[in-house]
């Protein structure tokens, strides 16, 4: 079961004119695995995410995702004219599907991101961190098999970002989707992921397994700094 693949990509090529943004990329993400994808701007990170989320189908090569995909983008991308809880269940009532108790479902998802009290608020009244948590709740309420995180913490201040790391780690432990986190923050990748891939010129050029001692060290240092990560420490 541990070897079941959620993402399976082989020889993926994406061209814009003459430029190969993805150049024969291979990628495998196991079920429930947390992978961070690091790379400089223009390395093809966003393009890969767009392909995996089904937004870009004009590619050659093999790319399969087993199951439901959810994305949390860099911006929360909430519909301003819908209240928070309606934004959370945005993806549940599509294609004629009916949800038994949308309000209750939304409230449970919001409670997980500690925003239960904001169910009836308008998105424009939220802070950046709150909006991003709503976005996470919206992504997770679909119980995705693959959660794509497209630099979702880049626009947040440092303290909010640390709190978000902790929250994401908790949510991942609860729901156990495969996660592909795109970032250019090395520290972020080290704290969150089991495995780090480095993308350059449209190919994966390096792979690192994040070892337990490193994570523990970081946790300890952060604890010294007053950021308590004890609950999110994974065995």
């Amino acid at each position, binding site marked *: 079961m541990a070897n079941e693949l959620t993402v399976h990509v082989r020889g993926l090529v994406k061209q814009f004119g003459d430029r190969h943004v993805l150049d024969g990329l291979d990628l495998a993400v196991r079920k429930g695995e947390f992978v961070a994808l690091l790379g400089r701007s223009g390395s093809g990170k966003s393009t890969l995410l767009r392909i995996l*989320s*089904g*937004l870009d189908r004009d590619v050659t090569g093999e790319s399969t995702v087993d199951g439901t995909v959810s994305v949390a983008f860099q*911006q929360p991308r909430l519909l301003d004219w819908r209240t928070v809880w309606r934004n959370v269940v945005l993806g549940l009532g*599509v294609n004629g599907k009916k949800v038994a108790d949308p309000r209750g479902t939304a409230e449970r998802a919001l409670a997980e991101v500690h925003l239960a009290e904001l169910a009836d608020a308008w998105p424009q009244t939220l802070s950046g961190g709150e909006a991003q948590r709503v976005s996470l709740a919206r992504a997770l309420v679909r119980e995705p098999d693959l959660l794509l995180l497209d630099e979702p913490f880049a626009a947040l201040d440092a303290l909010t970002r640390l709190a978000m790391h902790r929250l994401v780690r908790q949510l991942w432990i609860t729901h156990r989707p495969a996660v592909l986190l795109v970032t250019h923050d090395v520290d972020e990748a080290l704290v969150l992921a089991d495995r780090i891939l480095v993308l350059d010129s449209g190919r994966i050029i390096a792979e690192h397994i994040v070892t337990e001692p490193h994570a523990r060290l970081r946790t300890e240092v952060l604890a010294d700094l007053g950021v308590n990560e004890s609950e999110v420490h994974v065995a």
Partner: protein
Amino acid sequence: MSTSTDLLGRARERTASKDVRTPRRIGRWRVSALLRLISPIALVLLWQLLSSAGAISEDKLVSPVSIGATAGQLIQSGELGDAMVVSLRRVAIGFAIGLVVGAVIGIAAGLSRWSDLLIDPPMQMLRTLPFLGLIPLFIIWFGIGEAPKIALVALGTAFPLYVNVHAGIKDADRRLVEATTVLGYSRWERVRHVILPSAVPNSLVGLRLGLAAAWLSLVVGEQINASAGLGYMINNASEFGRNDIVLVALLVYAILGLLTDGVVRLLERRLLRWRTS
């Protein structure tokens, strides 16, 4: 005992302070609204004083009091009411036609690339025409009955609506569209839940501009070959040198325009309540 009283007291205090906040804000708003009335009232008083002192000739501009008296007579005789009904009917029919046409082609051009390519260029060209200058042409086409007046109102309404609905749809945030695509929305669902709601603020601007254009078109259109309505009343009064009746009719136009604008404002407040400011 004392703790519970304390708690009750505190609880009561909190509700009370919450209750106080709203009226105070409304109160402040009311005060500033009242303050804004000072200068208009002063101007009307000055006008009345100058008229009473004989500094303003009654032949050119009657006093506010006389306007009030004339308005009373016109209301009692039913003349004003009849004229209003005729004018309101013209503006209602013309505005409704312009609204539907402007919104429908705006949505079509906004949603489909081909419709945009075909519809937008002629619309942008026609928009530059001074449409009030089309009256002679409209008389040739539609005669001198109700049709040219209604057509003029419809035309005046359609353009601002088209332009703003079109722009509203074009400006819809692509990133929101993408987000819902990932959530599995079909094209129709994206249009219904993302693109059209995104266009609402702009469309309301179009609605207000369209309404203003409708009243303007009516005023101009009605003064040509009309045999009923406020414009006819103005023309008729002008021939007899009755500037009091002209002024009453103009005031009625202004009041009706303000009222309809108020309706759109209410609509805005309801539809855009999600906006923070």
